[in-house]
């Protein structure tokens, strides 16, 4: 009997502990529910309503918002055609985000490797140098990029002064400018997870590779890259997701013409006055991100290389 009492006492203690743990986490959960996750369901609802005349919505059900994500209705004969403008923007967003991911990976990999192979003391300093831009305002970094690449900017001024060109190169307000800006802004997001996995690299394995007459390139492709693959995948996802939803960088460096999904969404809540379409676009963007995340989770699950 006494044993059962003791057991139920432990059980009661554990229940009380769990209850107090729920109580403790309530404020954080409520804040996030109220001002981050909950409102997403309203977006879903709004995507099935009718646009109001001056923005906002009318409370009548309509699938027009979703239809016009990919199709456009002819105002005269009501026929549907592919919405080229939207498709162009979706394509540009995905293309630029993938390119940003690839470029940051290519330049971020050697950078992270460089940091990871420094001595214990200087490593901290290099890491600090990567972290500073990461925590400085994205807007300021975009402004810095703008100042350098615009027609009267540093690059053009230099090129003209050295007589390499007569007319300034139009770099600003192009897709290339958006790409450069996003690479510049998101590079630390690639370097940090890469570094985290390289820091744990077991250099005895590399030594073993050289003992077996591998060339440095072969060591890189057959030993280092497979071992740091989790970091490469994590960095790619960390760069790809914010690139896809980027709003500030394309709106400043791309000008009014080279829109990305983020700008298209904003347009619907501003001059476009089509909140249901804006809502549908937002949900669509979120779905693409979810797909990318799912792919990541599956990959991270299967590529947990076992060694040791």
């Amino acid at each position, binding site marked *: 009997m006494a044993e059962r009492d003791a057991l139920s006492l432990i059980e009661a203690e554990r229940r009380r*502990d*769990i209850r107090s*743990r*729920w109580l403790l*986490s309530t*404020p*954080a*959960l409520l*804040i*996030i529910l*109220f*001002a*981050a*996750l909950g*409102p997403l369901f*309203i*977006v879903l609802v709004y995507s099935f309503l009718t646009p109001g005349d001056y923005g906002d919505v009318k409370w009548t059900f309509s699938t027009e918002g979703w239809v016009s994500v990919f199709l456009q209705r002819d105002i005269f004969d009501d026929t549907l055609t592919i919405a080229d403008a939207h498709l162009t923007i979706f394509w540009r967003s995905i293309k630029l985000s993938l390119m940003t991911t690839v470029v940051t990976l290519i*330049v*971020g990999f*050697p950078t992270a*490797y*460089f*940091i990871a192979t420094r001595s214990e003391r200087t490593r901290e300093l290099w890491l600090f*140098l*990567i*972290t*500073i*831009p990461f*925590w*400085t*305002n994205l*807007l*300021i*970094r975009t*402004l*810095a*990029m*703008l*100042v*350098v690449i615009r027609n*009267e*900017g540093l690059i053009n*001024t230099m090129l003209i002064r050295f007589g390499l060109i007569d007319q300034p190169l139009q770099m600003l307000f192009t897709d290339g400018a958006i790409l450069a800006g996003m690479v510049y802004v998101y590079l630390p997001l690639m370097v940090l997870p890469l570094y985290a996995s390289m820091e744990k690299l077991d*250099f005895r394995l590399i*030594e073993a590779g*050289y003992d077996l007459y591998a060339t*440095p390139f072969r060591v890189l492709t057959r030993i*280092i890259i497979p071992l740091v693959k989790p970091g490469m995948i994590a960095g790619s996802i960390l760069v790809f*997701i914010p690139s896809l*939803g980027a*709003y*500030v960088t394309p709106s*400043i460096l791309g000008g009014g013409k080279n829109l990305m999904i*983020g700008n298209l*969404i904003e347009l619907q809540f501003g001059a476009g006055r089509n909140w249901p379409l*804006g809502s549908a676009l*937002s949900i669509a*963007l*979120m779905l693409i991100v979810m797909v990318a*995340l799912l792919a990541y989770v599956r990959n991270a699950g299967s590529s947990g290389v076992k060694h040791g």
Partner: protein
Amino acid sequence: MARRFDIRRQTGFTTIAMIVFFALYLPIAVLVVFAFNAGDSLSVWEGFSLHWFERAMENGAVIDASLRSLQIAGVAAVVATIAATMAALATTRTEPYPGLTFKYAFINQPLMIPEIVTAVALLIFFSRIKIWTGYDGLAYLIVAHTAFCVPFAYLPIRARLESMDLTLERAAADLYATPWNTFRYVTLPLLWPGILAGFMLAFVISLDDVVITNFVKSGGQDTLPTYMLGQMRRAITPEMNAISAVFLLISIAIVTVFFFVNRKRA
């Protein structure tokens, strides 16, 4: 003559890394240098002057926006840090219990959603509430900032807690300390660096936010970043550089403190 063979070496990696660091800092350096330009060009040097800093200091809109930014970031970071500390205490140093994974996912979820989507969701949600209540003050911005600051404050606090075991707390309890006193005199002092790091992270994140603020703010509620965004779409003068330079200095100061607080762990 032959250099000792270094197994860590990969040809060209150091060069690329140097170029990356150079490219990372060059634009920022140019931006800061031209804040001190006497003329109004952003690329032709016309002599040293503090003229643009004075201009920025005399600009009512800039001061106004800066104070609003600090006010929002201060309140949001404090509230977010308290909520995150409580949540971290509730989700670490325990056997798995029902709902634990859910809490992790829920608290970190805002990090997975594109900012523009959250911004749109809050615009819709808050514009409804504005119509119902007629209130259009700063509270909307503060609440929105608090929400996206929670996961950032949570991360370092949780990391710190996970590196602490329960031995000292159990010892305190054995010596008849009340749960509150145990928390106050044992847990809190040990956890303090984590809380401080979480607070600073939240503060910087709030201070830097552009997208969500831009969608949620009512008329006349510009923060420094949204003010700058508005100006950037018009002509850019070195006044923007001056504002950026000061902003940068503040961020770097906070990050430096954060870096050292975090490094001295255990």
